[in-house]
Protein backbone atom coordinates (compact mmCIF):
# COMPACT_ATOMS: atom_id res chain seq x y z
CA UNK A 1 0.00 0.00 0.00
CA UNK A 2 2.67 2.42 0.93
CA UNK A 3 4.36 1.69 -2.28
CA UNK A 4 1.27 2.50 -4.26
CA UNK A 5 0.64 5.65 -2.31
CA UNK A 6 4.14 6.72 -2.90
CA UNK A 7 3.82 6.13 -6.57
CA UNK A 8 0.58 8.00 -6.68
CA UNK A 9 2.03 11.07 -5.03
CA UNK A 10 5.48 11.00 -6.47
CA UNK A 11 4.82 10.27 -10.10
CA UNK A 12 2.61 13.24 -10.93
CA UNK A 13 5.07 15.45 -9.13
CA UNK A 14 7.99 14.16 -11.10
CA UNK A 15 5.98 14.28 -14.24
CA UNK A 16 4.99 17.88 -13.76
CA UNK A 17 8.51 18.82 -12.80
CA UNK A 18 9.91 17.30 -15.90
CA UNK A 19 7.18 18.73 -18.04
CA UNK A 20 7.86 22.15 -16.67
CA UNK A 21 11.34 22.10 -18.12
CA UNK A 22 10.47 21.97 -21.81
CA UNK A 23 7.66 24.38 -21.13
CA UNK A 24 10.17 26.82 -19.72
CA UNK A 25 12.30 26.39 -22.79
CA UNK A 26 9.35 26.94 -25.05
CA UNK A 27 8.38 30.00 -23.17
CA UNK A 28 11.85 31.42 -23.48
CA UNK A 29 11.83 30.64 -27.15
CA UNK A 30 8.50 32.28 -27.67
CA UNK A 31 8.93 35.48 -25.82
CA UNK A 32 9.89 38.55 -27.74
CA UNK A 33 12.22 39.74 -29.06
CA UNK A 34 13.33 36.38 -30.35
CA UNK A 35 12.64 35.45 -33.91
CA UNK A 36 8.94 34.71 -34.15
CA UNK A 37 9.26 32.84 -37.42
CA UNK A 38 10.19 29.58 -35.71
CA UNK A 39 7.03 27.51 -35.73
CA UNK A 40 5.90 25.70 -32.65
CA UNK A 41 6.52 22.21 -33.96
CA UNK A 42 10.13 23.05 -34.73
CA UNK A 43 10.67 24.40 -31.27
CA UNK A 44 9.04 21.37 -29.75
CA UNK A 45 11.30 19.09 -31.74
CA UNK A 46 14.33 20.95 -30.53
CA UNK A 47 13.08 20.97 -26.95
CA UNK A 48 12.59 17.28 -26.88
CA UNK A 49 15.87 16.58 -28.60
CA UNK A 50 17.82 18.54 -26.04
CA UNK A 51 15.73 17.28 -23.17
CA UNK A 52 16.07 13.74 -24.35
CA UNK A 53 19.80 13.93 -24.77
CA UNK A 54 20.25 15.49 -21.37
CA UNK A 55 17.98 13.04 -19.69
CA UNK A 56 19.95 10.25 -21.35
CA UNK A 57 23.21 11.73 -20.34
CA UNK A 58 22.31 11.97 -16.66
CA UNK A 59 21.93 8.26 -15.96
CA UNK A 60 24.96 7.58 -18.09
CA UNK A 61 26.84 10.07 -16.01
CA UNK A 62 25.76 8.43 -12.79
CA UNK A 63 27.01 5.15 -14.06
CA UNK A 64 30.17 6.70 -15.36
CA UNK A 65 30.81 8.31 -12.02
CA UNK A 66 30.56 5.04 -10.24
CA UNK A 67 32.62 3.21 -12.81
CA UNK A 68 35.30 5.88 -13.01
CA UNK A 69 35.55 6.14 -9.25
CA UNK A 70 35.86 2.40 -9.04
CA UNK A 71 38.50 2.45 -11.70
CA UNK A 72 40.40 5.21 -9.90
CA UNK A 73 40.14 3.40 -6.62
CA UNK A 74 41.18 0.15 -8.18
CA UNK A 75 37.94 -1.71 -7.66
CA UNK A 76 35.23 -2.97 -9.96
CA UNK A 77 32.12 -0.89 -9.41
CA UNK A 78 28.58 -1.79 -10.50
CA UNK A 79 28.74 -4.51 -13.11
CA UNK A 80 25.78 -6.76 -12.42
CA UNK A 81 22.75 -5.12 -14.04
CA UNK A 82 22.93 -5.32 -17.76
CA UNK A 83 26.12 -5.75 -19.77
CA UNK A 84 28.97 -4.14 -17.87
CA UNK A 85 26.41 -2.71 -15.42
CA UNK A 86 24.94 -0.53 -18.13
CA UNK A 87 21.40 -0.89 -16.84
CA UNK A 88 22.36 0.06 -13.30
CA UNK A 89 20.90 3.59 -13.59
CA UNK A 90 17.58 2.16 -14.65
CA UNK A 91 17.61 -0.08 -11.65
CA UNK A 92 18.41 2.88 -9.45
CA UNK A 93 15.50 4.75 -10.92
CA UNK A 94 13.11 1.96 -10.28
CA UNK A 95 14.40 1.65 -6.75
CA UNK A 96 13.87 5.35 -6.16
CA UNK A 97 10.42 5.38 -7.58
CA UNK A 98 9.34 2.61 -5.34
CA UNK A 99 10.95 3.77 -2.14
CA UNK A 100 8.75 5.18 0.56
CA UNK A 101 7.96 8.82 0.23
CA UNK A 102 9.01 10.13 3.64
CA UNK A 103 8.06 13.55 4.84
CA UNK A 104 9.19 14.61 8.27
CA UNK A 105 6.73 16.03 10.72
CA UNK A 106 6.06 19.75 10.71
CA UNK A 107 7.49 20.68 7.35
CA UNK A 108 5.70 22.99 4.94
CA UNK A 109 4.52 20.48 2.35
CA UNK A 110 4.59 22.68 -0.70
CA UNK A 111 8.05 24.10 -0.24
CA UNK A 112 9.41 20.74 0.78
CA UNK A 113 8.16 19.28 -2.46
CA UNK A 114 8.93 22.23 -4.65
CA UNK A 115 12.58 22.55 -3.60
CA UNK A 116 13.94 19.54 -5.55
CA UNK A 117 11.76 20.48 -8.49
CA UNK A 118 13.30 23.94 -8.58
CA UNK A 119 16.77 22.49 -8.50
CA UNK A 120 16.03 20.10 -11.35
CA UNK A 121 14.08 22.55 -13.49
CA UNK A 122 16.70 25.24 -13.31
CA UNK A 123 19.48 22.89 -14.23
CA UNK A 124 17.56 21.40 -17.12
CA UNK A 125 16.27 24.75 -18.39
CA UNK A 126 19.79 25.99 -18.75
CA UNK A 127 20.20 23.66 -21.66
CA UNK A 128 17.59 25.64 -23.56
CA UNK A 129 20.03 28.39 -24.48
CA UNK A 130 23.00 26.14 -25.19
CA UNK A 131 23.59 25.84 -28.92
CA UNK A 132 24.52 22.36 -29.93
CA UNK A 133 25.30 23.18 -33.50
CA UNK A 134 25.50 25.97 -36.02
CA UNK A 135 22.66 27.06 -38.23
CA UNK A 136 21.03 24.35 -40.24
CA UNK A 137 20.02 25.44 -43.72
CA UNK A 138 17.38 23.08 -44.87
CA UNK A 139 14.32 23.40 -47.08
CA UNK A 140 14.80 27.14 -47.53
CA UNK A 141 14.70 27.55 -43.81
CA UNK A 142 17.58 28.43 -41.56
CA UNK A 143 17.21 26.74 -38.24
CA UNK A 144 19.43 27.75 -35.37
CA UNK A 145 20.47 24.65 -33.52
CA UNK A 146 19.41 25.93 -30.17
CA UNK A 147 16.11 25.75 -28.35
CA UNK A 148 15.76 29.39 -27.38
CA UNK A 149 17.70 31.59 -29.73
CA UNK A 150 17.39 34.58 -27.42
CA UNK A 151 20.00 37.30 -27.41
CA UNK A 152 20.29 37.21 -23.64
CA UNK A 153 21.37 33.59 -23.59
CA UNK A 154 24.34 33.99 -21.28
CA UNK A 155 22.27 36.00 -18.86
CA UNK A 156 19.63 33.31 -18.84
CA UNK A 157 22.28 30.86 -17.76
CA UNK A 158 23.29 33.10 -14.91
CA UNK A 159 19.71 33.84 -13.94
CA UNK A 160 18.80 30.18 -13.86
CA UNK A 161 21.81 29.33 -11.78
CA UNK A 162 20.74 32.07 -9.38
CA UNK A 163 17.31 30.58 -9.11
CA UNK A 164 18.82 27.14 -8.76
CA UNK A 165 20.17 28.12 -5.35
CA UNK A 166 16.64 28.25 -4.07
CA UNK A 167 16.17 24.59 -4.58
CA UNK A 168 18.93 23.70 -2.20
CA UNK A 169 18.36 26.50 0.28
CA UNK A 170 14.67 25.85 0.54
CA UNK A 171 15.17 22.14 0.66
CA UNK A 172 17.42 22.65 3.61
CA UNK A 173 15.09 25.02 5.32
CA UNK A 174 11.91 23.09 4.69
CA UNK A 175 13.31 19.86 6.06
CA UNK A 176 12.95 21.16 9.60
CA UNK A 177 16.29 19.65 10.49
CA UNK A 178 19.44 21.32 11.65
CA UNK A 179 21.72 19.36 9.31
CA UNK A 180 19.61 20.23 6.37
CA UNK A 181 19.40 23.85 7.39
CA UNK A 182 23.14 24.10 7.76
CA UNK A 183 23.56 22.50 4.37
CA UNK A 184 21.13 24.93 2.83
CA UNK A 185 22.81 27.91 4.45
CA UNK A 186 26.23 26.80 3.34
CA UNK A 187 24.88 26.38 -0.12
CA UNK A 188 23.45 29.88 -0.19
CA UNK A 189 26.67 31.43 1.01
CA UNK A 190 28.74 29.40 -1.37
CA UNK A 191 26.62 30.16 -4.37
CA UNK A 192 26.43 33.86 -3.68
CA UNK A 193 30.17 33.97 -3.26
CA UNK A 194 31.06 32.08 -6.39
CA UNK A 195 28.39 33.52 -8.58
CA UNK A 196 30.30 36.79 -8.57
CA UNK A 197 33.45 35.22 -9.95
CA UNK A 198 31.38 33.22 -12.38
CA UNK A 199 29.69 36.29 -13.74
CA UNK A 200 32.78 38.43 -13.92
CA UNK A 201 34.95 35.84 -15.65
CA UNK A 202 32.10 35.33 -18.05
CA UNK A 203 32.14 39.02 -18.82
CA UNK A 204 35.71 38.59 -19.98
CA UNK A 205 34.57 36.11 -22.58
CA UNK A 206 31.92 38.46 -23.84
CA UNK A 207 34.46 41.24 -24.08
CA UNK A 208 36.96 39.35 -26.17
CA UNK A 209 34.28 37.80 -28.33
CA UNK A 210 32.91 41.14 -29.32
CA UNK A 211 29.48 40.54 -27.84
CA UNK A 212 29.28 43.99 -26.37
CA UNK A 213 29.81 45.50 -29.76
CA UNK A 214 26.96 43.59 -31.27
CA UNK A 215 24.91 43.95 -28.10
CA UNK A 216 23.93 40.30 -28.05
CA UNK A 217 24.61 37.73 -25.38
CA UNK A 218 23.98 34.72 -27.56
CA UNK A 219 26.17 31.79 -26.79
CA UNK A 220 26.11 30.94 -30.47
CA UNK A 221 27.76 34.26 -31.22
CA UNK A 222 30.59 33.40 -28.89
CA UNK A 223 31.02 30.09 -30.64
CA UNK A 224 30.76 31.73 -34.03
CA UNK A 225 33.56 34.07 -33.08
CA UNK A 226 35.77 31.23 -31.95
CA UNK A 227 34.95 29.30 -35.10
CA UNK A 228 35.75 32.15 -37.48
CA UNK A 229 38.97 33.07 -35.76
CA UNK A 230 39.86 29.45 -35.22
CA UNK A 231 41.11 30.16 -31.74
CA UNK A 232 39.25 29.03 -28.65
CA UNK A 233 38.67 31.42 -25.84
CA UNK A 234 40.50 29.17 -23.43
CA UNK A 235 43.68 30.30 -25.18
CA UNK A 236 42.69 33.92 -25.11
CA UNK A 237 41.66 33.87 -21.47
CA UNK A 238 43.46 31.03 -19.73
CA UNK A 239 42.90 32.64 -16.37
CA UNK A 240 39.23 33.20 -17.08
CA UNK A 241 38.88 29.59 -18.16
CA UNK A 242 40.36 28.32 -14.93
CA UNK A 243 38.31 30.67 -12.83
CA UNK A 244 35.08 29.88 -14.61
CA UNK A 245 35.69 26.19 -14.28
CA UNK A 246 36.37 26.47 -10.55
CA UNK A 247 33.29 28.61 -10.09
CA UNK A 248 31.22 26.13 -12.07
CA UNK A 249 32.40 23.36 -9.79
CA UNK A 250 31.30 25.42 -6.82
CA UNK A 251 27.96 26.20 -8.39
CA UNK A 252 27.25 22.56 -8.97
CA UNK A 253 28.25 21.66 -5.42
CA UNK A 254 30.82 19.25 -6.65
CA UNK A 255 33.95 18.32 -4.82
CA UNK A 256 36.06 20.02 -3.74
CA UNK A 257 33.13 22.32 -3.00
CA UNK A 258 30.52 19.88 -1.81
CA UNK A 259 30.17 21.37 1.62
CA UNK A 260 26.38 21.63 1.43
CA UNK A 261 26.20 17.86 1.46
CA UNK A 262 29.39 17.06 3.29
CA UNK A 263 28.59 13.59 4.58
CA UNK A 264 30.93 13.41 7.54
CA UNK A 265 29.59 16.64 9.03
CA UNK A 266 26.06 17.08 7.89
CA UNK A 267 24.94 13.51 7.28
CA UNK A 268 23.54 14.26 3.81
CA UNK A 269 23.38 18.04 3.95
CA UNK A 270 20.29 19.64 2.51
CA UNK A 271 18.87 16.35 1.28
CA UNK A 272 19.23 14.44 4.51
CA UNK A 273 15.46 14.27 4.94
CA UNK A 274 14.70 13.55 1.32
CA UNK A 275 13.98 10.16 -0.03
CA UNK A 276 12.45 8.46 -2.99
CA UNK A 277 11.87 10.50 -6.11
CA UNK A 278 12.16 13.83 -4.34
CA UNK A 279 15.70 12.85 -3.60
CA UNK A 280 15.89 11.61 -7.15
CA UNK A 281 15.09 15.06 -8.42
CA UNK A 282 17.89 16.59 -6.41
CA UNK A 283 20.11 13.91 -7.82
CA UNK A 284 18.90 14.58 -11.29
CA UNK A 285 19.31 18.30 -10.82
CA UNK A 286 22.89 17.96 -9.71
CA UNK A 287 23.89 15.85 -12.66
CA UNK A 288 21.90 17.95 -15.08
CA UNK A 289 23.68 20.97 -13.69
CA UNK A 290 26.94 19.22 -14.41
CA UNK A 291 25.87 18.63 -17.97
CA UNK A 292 24.68 22.19 -18.37
CA UNK A 293 27.81 23.60 -16.76
CA UNK A 294 30.02 21.52 -19.02
CA UNK A 295 28.06 22.60 -22.04
CA UNK A 296 28.34 26.24 -21.14
CA UNK A 297 32.06 25.93 -20.53
CA UNK A 298 32.49 24.18 -23.81
CA UNK A 299 30.54 26.90 -25.56
CA UNK A 300 32.32 29.75 -23.89
CA UNK A 301 35.87 28.52 -23.81
CA UNK A 302 36.30 25.42 -25.87
CA UNK A 303 34.79 26.40 -29.16
CA UNK A 304 31.40 24.72 -28.79
CA UNK A 305 30.66 22.73 -31.87
CA UNK A 306 33.73 24.01 -33.63
CA UNK A 307 36.44 21.58 -34.50
CA UNK A 308 39.75 22.82 -35.89
CA UNK A 309 39.76 20.63 -38.94
CA UNK A 310 36.13 20.85 -39.80
CA UNK A 311 35.72 23.99 -41.86
CA UNK A 312 32.37 25.59 -42.45
CA UNK A 313 32.40 24.33 -46.02
CA UNK A 314 32.33 20.76 -44.75
CA UNK A 315 29.64 21.33 -42.14
CA UNK A 316 26.61 21.99 -44.31
CA UNK A 317 23.30 20.30 -44.44
CA UNK A 318 22.16 17.49 -42.28
CA UNK A 319 25.49 15.75 -42.16
CA UNK A 320 27.20 18.93 -41.16
CA UNK A 321 24.72 19.50 -38.37
CA UNK A 322 25.18 16.00 -37.11
CA UNK A 323 28.92 16.41 -37.31
CA UNK A 324 28.75 19.58 -35.26
CA UNK A 325 26.50 17.98 -32.72
CA UNK A 326 28.88 15.07 -32.39
CA UNK A 327 31.82 17.38 -31.88
CA UNK A 328 29.91 19.28 -29.26
CA UNK A 329 28.80 16.13 -27.51
CA UNK A 330 32.31 14.77 -27.53
CA UNK A 331 33.65 17.89 -25.91
CA UNK A 332 30.93 17.89 -23.29
CA UNK A 333 31.57 14.26 -22.49
CA UNK A 334 35.27 14.91 -22.20
CA UNK A 335 34.65 17.73 -19.83
CA UNK A 336 32.23 15.67 -17.82
CA UNK A 337 34.95 13.11 -17.44
CA UNK A 338 37.13 15.88 -16.10
CA UNK A 339 34.35 16.74 -13.64
CA UNK A 340 34.24 13.21 -12.35
CA UNK A 341 37.96 12.91 -12.29
CA UNK A 342 38.33 15.98 -10.15
CA UNK A 343 35.73 14.74 -7.73
CA UNK A 344 37.69 11.64 -6.96
CA UNK A 345 41.03 13.37 -6.90
CA UNK A 346 40.78 16.41 -4.67
CA UNK A 347 39.96 16.66 -0.96
CA UNK A 348 37.17 18.87 0.28
CA UNK A 349 37.87 22.43 1.36
CA UNK A 350 37.14 23.66 4.85
CA UNK A 351 34.40 26.27 5.10
CA UNK A 352 36.73 29.16 5.86
CA UNK A 353 39.04 28.03 3.07
CA UNK A 354 36.09 28.05 0.76
CA UNK A 355 35.23 31.62 1.64
CA UNK A 356 38.86 32.74 1.48
CA UNK A 357 39.25 31.21 -1.94
CA UNK A 358 36.03 32.74 -3.18
CA UNK A 359 36.43 36.25 -1.94
CA UNK A 360 40.15 36.77 -1.59
CA UNK A 361 41.42 34.88 -4.62
CA UNK A 362 38.71 34.25 -7.15
CA UNK A 363 37.12 37.68 -7.07
CA UNK A 364 40.33 39.71 -7.49
CA UNK A 365 41.62 37.30 -10.06
CA UNK A 366 38.44 37.46 -12.05
CA UNK A 367 38.69 41.24 -12.03
CA UNK A 368 42.25 40.86 -13.25
CA UNK A 369 40.95 38.58 -15.94
CA UNK A 370 38.42 41.18 -16.96
CA UNK A 371 41.20 43.70 -17.20
CA UNK A 372 43.18 41.28 -19.31
CA UNK A 373 40.19 40.74 -21.53
CA UNK A 374 39.72 44.48 -21.89
CA UNK A 375 43.32 44.89 -22.92
CA UNK A 376 42.91 41.98 -25.26
CA UNK A 377 39.95 43.55 -26.98
CA UNK A 378 41.24 47.09 -26.96
CA UNK A 379 44.67 46.23 -28.31
CA UNK A 380 43.28 43.83 -30.88
CA UNK A 381 45.28 40.78 -29.94
CA UNK A 382 44.53 37.43 -31.58
Amino acid at each position, binding site marked *: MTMLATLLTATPLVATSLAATPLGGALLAATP*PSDATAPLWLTLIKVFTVFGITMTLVPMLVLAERRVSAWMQYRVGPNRVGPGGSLQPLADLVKMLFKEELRPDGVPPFIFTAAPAIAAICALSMMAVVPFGGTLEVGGRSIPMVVADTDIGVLVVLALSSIGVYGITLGGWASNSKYSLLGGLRSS*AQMISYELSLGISLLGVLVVSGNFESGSFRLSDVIEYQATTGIWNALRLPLGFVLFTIAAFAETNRLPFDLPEAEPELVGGYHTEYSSMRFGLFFLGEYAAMVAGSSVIVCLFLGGWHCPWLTTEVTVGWTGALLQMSVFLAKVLAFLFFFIHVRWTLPRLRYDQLMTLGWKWMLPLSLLNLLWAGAHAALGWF
Partner: protein
Amino acid sequence: MLSERTAFLVFSAIALIGAANVVTRKNPVHAALWLVGSFLGVAGLFLTLGAGLLGAIQVMVYAGAIMVLFLFVILLLNLDVTEGDGLSFARGASFLAAIATLALVALPFAQSRELRAAATPDHAAPDASAGNVADLLFTRYALPFEVVSLLLLIAMVGAIHLARRPRRDESV
Protein backbone atom coordinates in the same frame (compact mmCIF):
# COMPACT_ATOMS: atom_id res chain seq x y z
CA MET B 1 1.57 30.33 -30.23
CA LEU B 2 1.84 32.36 -27.10
CA SER B 3 0.39 35.72 -27.87
CA GLU B 4 1.82 38.75 -26.19
CA ARG B 5 -1.48 39.47 -24.56
CA THR B 6 -1.62 36.02 -23.01
CA ALA B 7 1.93 36.38 -21.82
CA PHE B 8 1.09 39.73 -20.31
CA LEU B 9 -1.93 38.37 -18.51
CA VAL B 10 -0.07 35.36 -17.19
CA PHE B 11 2.91 37.32 -16.01
CA SER B 12 0.96 40.12 -14.42
CA ALA B 13 -1.19 37.56 -12.66
CA ILE B 14 1.97 35.95 -11.31
CA ALA B 15 3.36 39.30 -10.25
CA LEU B 16 0.20 40.47 -8.55
CA ILE B 17 -0.68 37.22 -6.85
CA GLY B 18 2.87 37.02 -5.64
CA ALA B 19 2.73 40.55 -4.31
CA ALA B 20 -0.59 39.98 -2.61
CA ASN B 21 0.81 36.95 -0.89
CA VAL B 22 3.92 38.83 0.18
CA VAL B 23 1.69 41.22 1.99
CA THR B 24 -0.58 38.65 3.51
CA ARG B 25 1.62 35.66 4.45
CA LYS B 26 2.40 35.51 8.13
CA ASN B 27 5.58 33.55 7.70
CA PRO B 28 8.36 35.78 6.39
CA VAL B 29 10.00 32.90 4.52
CA HIS B 30 6.78 32.29 2.65
CA ALA B 31 6.48 35.96 2.00
CA ALA B 32 9.98 35.97 0.61
CA LEU B 33 9.21 33.08 -1.67
CA TRP B 34 6.11 34.73 -2.95
CA LEU B 35 8.20 37.80 -3.55
CA VAL B 36 10.49 35.72 -5.74
CA GLY B 37 7.42 34.68 -7.64
CA SER B 38 6.39 38.27 -8.01
CA PHE B 39 9.87 39.19 -9.21
CA LEU B 40 9.75 36.46 -11.79
CA GLY B 41 6.38 37.73 -12.93
CA VAL B 42 7.75 41.23 -13.32
CA ALA B 43 10.72 39.81 -15.17
CA GLY B 44 8.26 38.17 -17.53
CA LEU B 45 6.53 41.50 -17.98
CA PHE B 46 9.88 42.98 -18.89
CA LEU B 47 10.26 40.27 -21.49
CA THR B 48 6.91 41.12 -23.01
CA LEU B 49 7.96 44.76 -23.06
CA GLY B 50 10.96 43.87 -25.18
CA ALA B 51 13.41 44.43 -22.37
CA GLY B 52 14.88 40.96 -22.22
CA LEU B 53 18.12 42.22 -20.82
CA LEU B 54 16.38 43.81 -17.90
CA GLY B 55 14.30 40.70 -17.39
CA ALA B 56 17.40 38.58 -17.08
CA ILE B 57 19.03 41.07 -14.79
CA GLN B 58 15.89 41.25 -12.73
CA VAL B 59 16.05 37.54 -12.18
CA MET B 60 19.77 37.52 -11.57
CA VAL B 61 19.95 40.45 -9.22
CA TYR B 62 16.57 40.57 -7.58
CA ALA B 63 15.42 37.03 -7.56
CA GLY B 64 18.94 35.71 -7.24
CA ALA B 65 21.13 37.88 -5.16
CA ILE B 66 18.76 40.03 -3.18
CA MET B 67 16.30 37.35 -2.35
CA VAL B 68 18.97 34.87 -1.42
CA LEU B 69 20.31 37.50 0.92
CA PHE B 70 16.85 37.87 2.34
CA LEU B 71 16.39 34.22 2.85
CA PHE B 72 19.84 33.99 4.27
CA VAL B 73 19.07 36.57 6.87
CA ILE B 74 15.75 35.06 7.67
CA LEU B 75 17.26 31.65 8.07
CA LEU B 76 20.11 33.08 10.07
CA LEU B 77 17.76 34.78 12.46
CA ASN B 78 15.71 31.60 12.56
CA LEU B 79 12.66 33.55 13.48
CA ASP B 80 9.92 32.25 15.54
CA VAL B 81 7.18 33.71 13.49
CA THR B 82 4.38 35.28 15.38
CA GLU B 83 3.15 38.61 14.32
CA GLY B 84 0.51 40.32 16.33
CA ASP B 85 -2.22 41.74 14.18
CA GLY B 86 -3.75 44.36 16.36
CA LEU B 87 -4.56 47.17 13.99
CA SER B 88 -3.59 50.49 15.54
CA PHE B 89 -5.13 53.70 14.41
CA ALA B 90 -2.11 54.63 12.35
CA ARG B 91 -2.04 51.30 10.63
CA GLY B 92 -5.71 51.38 9.85
CA ALA B 93 -5.45 54.89 8.54
CA SER B 94 -2.41 53.94 6.50
CA PHE B 95 -4.33 51.10 4.98
CA LEU B 96 -7.05 53.47 3.91
CA ALA B 97 -4.52 55.92 2.57
CA ALA B 98 -2.85 53.17 0.61
CA ILE B 99 -6.12 52.29 -1.01
CA ALA B 100 -6.71 55.96 -1.77
CA THR B 101 -3.29 56.24 -3.41
CA LEU B 102 -3.98 53.18 -5.40
CA ALA B 103 -7.21 54.59 -6.64
CA LEU B 104 -5.71 57.97 -7.37
CA VAL B 105 -2.81 56.50 -9.28
CA ALA B 106 -4.66 53.82 -11.13
CA LEU B 107 -7.79 55.66 -12.14
CA PRO B 108 -6.26 58.29 -14.40
CA PHE B 109 -4.27 55.60 -16.12
CA ALA B 110 -7.31 53.53 -16.71
CA GLN B 111 -9.15 56.56 -18.03
CA SER B 112 -6.38 57.89 -20.23
CA ARG B 113 -7.41 57.44 -23.80
CA GLU B 114 -3.93 57.70 -25.26
CA LEU B 115 -2.53 55.14 -22.91
CA ARG B 116 -5.33 52.75 -23.59
CA ALA B 117 -5.00 53.07 -27.32
CA ALA B 118 -2.84 50.58 -29.14
CA ALA B 119 0.59 52.09 -29.22
CA THR B 120 2.55 52.84 -32.34
CA PRO B 121 6.10 51.97 -31.52
CA ASP B 122 8.85 54.04 -32.96
CA HIS B 123 10.97 51.46 -34.73
CA ALA B 124 13.74 53.90 -35.36
CA ALA B 125 14.38 54.23 -31.65
CA PRO B 126 17.26 52.14 -30.35
CA ASP B 127 15.91 48.97 -28.78
CA ALA B 128 16.73 47.91 -25.26
CA SER B 129 19.57 45.66 -26.23
CA ALA B 130 22.67 45.51 -24.11
CA GLY B 131 24.72 47.57 -26.53
CA ASN B 132 22.28 50.46 -26.61
CA VAL B 133 21.79 50.42 -22.88
CA ALA B 134 25.54 50.40 -22.40
CA ASP B 135 25.87 53.35 -24.76
CA LEU B 136 23.35 55.25 -22.70
CA LEU B 137 24.98 54.36 -19.43
CA PHE B 138 28.36 55.55 -20.53
CA THR B 139 27.26 58.69 -22.32
CA ARG B 140 23.96 60.26 -21.38
CA TYR B 141 23.73 58.70 -17.95
CA ALA B 142 27.43 58.68 -17.15
CA LEU B 143 27.05 60.88 -14.11
CA PRO B 144 24.17 58.98 -12.50
CA PHE B 145 26.07 55.84 -13.30
CA GLU B 146 29.07 57.03 -11.36
CA VAL B 147 26.90 58.27 -8.55
CA VAL B 148 25.18 54.94 -8.29
CA SER B 149 28.46 53.09 -8.23
CA LEU B 150 29.63 55.35 -5.46
CA LEU B 151 26.38 54.71 -3.63
CA LEU B 152 26.90 51.00 -3.93
CA LEU B 153 30.40 51.32 -2.56
CA ILE B 154 29.18 53.34 0.37
CA ALA B 155 26.38 50.90 1.00
CA MET B 156 28.84 48.05 0.92
CA VAL B 157 31.13 49.68 3.44
CA GLY B 158 28.18 50.59 5.62
CA ALA B 159 26.68 47.14 5.46
CA ILE B 160 29.95 45.47 6.34
CA HIS B 161 30.43 47.79 9.24
CA LEU B 162 26.92 47.32 10.51
CA ALA B 163 26.82 43.59 10.17
CA ARG B 164 30.28 42.98 11.55
CA ARG B 165 30.06 41.13 14.80
CA PRO B 166 31.46 43.46 17.44
CA ARG B 167 34.80 42.28 18.76
CA ARG B 168 34.80 40.88 22.23
CA ASP B 169 36.58 43.86 23.74
CA GLU B 170 34.20 46.28 22.05
CA SER B 171 31.03 44.60 23.20
CA VAL B 172 29.27 46.08 26.15
